[in-house]
């Protein structure tokens, strides 16, 4: 366990240095700047009566940006190492493929979380500047999103071991943005084709649900804090379902020819 942590820490440190030097965070800073400019426009015209609209736009924007960045960051973790052949000296060390997979997942989660936290804090600051307050549920929104980022990284990294980078990014974005539609589509199937309730529930449970990790609408409409056990349950879902995705990835990676 200590050894796995040491390996994960080493990979995360190198990953963070790479992220800073490849200027990934510049993208986040540019997006932040755009948010600020957008907010300035609101400031110029006034936001009286538009508080809900402004919060909705801001949180939707950071939700979309975070999802896209998370998918792009996670999708390149292992394929890029293979492509530039840096995987050879990495795997020549006394580390298992499972440890490498775990280290890469941790690196992607840390990097994407960092981007999200910067965006979330900037947005919060801008909203406060405009005189728009948020309730304490914002903290739960951030925590749940961080869980979602970890879960999404597991899905994307697992898929990256089965398909080309372009196919992986496309499918992952469809899964991330389309997961909210699964429930509605299944209900439509139930009504139109009389799909049994058992199959409906089974299918709904099996399909990935990134939408579970989004509390933005509750922040927008100033809900009170959700019970903390809900976040605990979501953490359980993220660990179990994300762990299952990593396991699926490992099943492929453990026997895969490197290079």
């Amino acid at each position, binding site marked *: 366990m200590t050894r796995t942590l040491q390996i994960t820490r080493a*990979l995360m440190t*190198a990953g963070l240095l790479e992220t800073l030097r490849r200027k990934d965070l510049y993208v986040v800073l540019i997006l932040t700047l755009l948010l600020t400019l957008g907010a300035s426009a609101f400031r110029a015209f006034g936001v009286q009566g538009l508080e809900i609209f402004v919060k909705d736009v801001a949180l939707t924007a950071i939700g979309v940006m975070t999802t896209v960045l998370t998918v792009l960051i996670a999708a390149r973790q292992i394929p890029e190492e293979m492509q*530039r052949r840096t995987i050879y000296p990495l795997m020549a060390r006394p*580390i298992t493929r499972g440890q490498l997979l775990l280290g890469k997942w941790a690196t992607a989660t840390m990097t994407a979380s960092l981007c999200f936290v910067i965006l979330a804090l900037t947005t919060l600051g801008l909203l406060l500047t405009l005189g728009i307050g948020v309730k304490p549920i914002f903290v739960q929104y951030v925590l749940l999103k961080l869980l979602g980022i970890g879960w999404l990284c597991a899905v994307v990294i697992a898929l990256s071991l089965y398909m080309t980078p372009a196919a992986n990014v496309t499918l992952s974005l469809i899964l991330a943005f389309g997961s909210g539609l699964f429930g509605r589509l299944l209900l439509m199937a139930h009504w139109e084709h009389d799909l049994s309730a058992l199959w409906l529930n089974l299918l709904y449970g099996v399909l990935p649900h990134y939408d579970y990790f989004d509390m933005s609408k509750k922040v927008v409409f100033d809900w009170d804090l959700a019970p903390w056990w809900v976040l605990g349950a979501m953490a359980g879902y993220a660990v179990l379902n994300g762990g299952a995705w990593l396991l699926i990835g490992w099943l492929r990676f453990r026997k895969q020819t490197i290079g």
Partner: protein
Amino acid sequence: MLPIEVSHLVVAYRRWFKPPFCAVDDLSFVVREGEIVGFLGANGAGKTSTIKTLMGFQPPTAGTARIFGMDATDARARQLVGFLPETALYSPYLTPYETLRLYGELHGLRGRQLKAQIEALLEAVNLSHKAHTLNKNLSKGMLQRVGIAQALLGDPKLLILDEVSSGLDPIGKRELRDLLATQRARGATIFFSSHELAEVASICDRILIIHRGRLIAEHRLSDLTGRVESLEDYFIRTVQAGRDILLEEANAA
């Protein structure tokens, strides 16, 4: 315990709508402790596939590959091995120092021991002055030196080097020879592939020649002295014939 023990190794690659391509075919050999063994063959002979199997990158289709008695796919076996891949690239966004720190930590080294080893290795490969320059700004030869340094991290008992002198200038090659001699002096076993036959002749104890995935010749270099014109001449004639010409001559006599 033998550093390398390969027994009836077969490595075949599956292809769509075609029969599998057999890169290594029933290959068996051993490397003993303290030896320097040159692994020779023309392009596509199966050298890299064999080395990939020894490093656990490629599972064998049949047969076994063992490192110090452990299966080559066992991560623990790599604790004792230093590896230099052919045409390796290192993360363009890290410096040589950071690259070595990453691999050192993955190797289980840490703290002052790791720092001291990184500094000593950068000095040994003559790269101290570029220790904090990003890898993307280094020349191919300098990157090869980074590769050599990372292979030596942790004082490995076995060095597996694929195309070791690729990209090095004559000075670099001389330094590499000295470095390998130092490694040998501390008792390391060295197994390497190279197309530089003069270099092989100058440092090897023994050579293995493979052709189309099969071992066709195995000799101590001292046995070749006086029997062949040069290693290059012997290698070319053997590979062209597809069999060991010395053995053939001995049988004919």
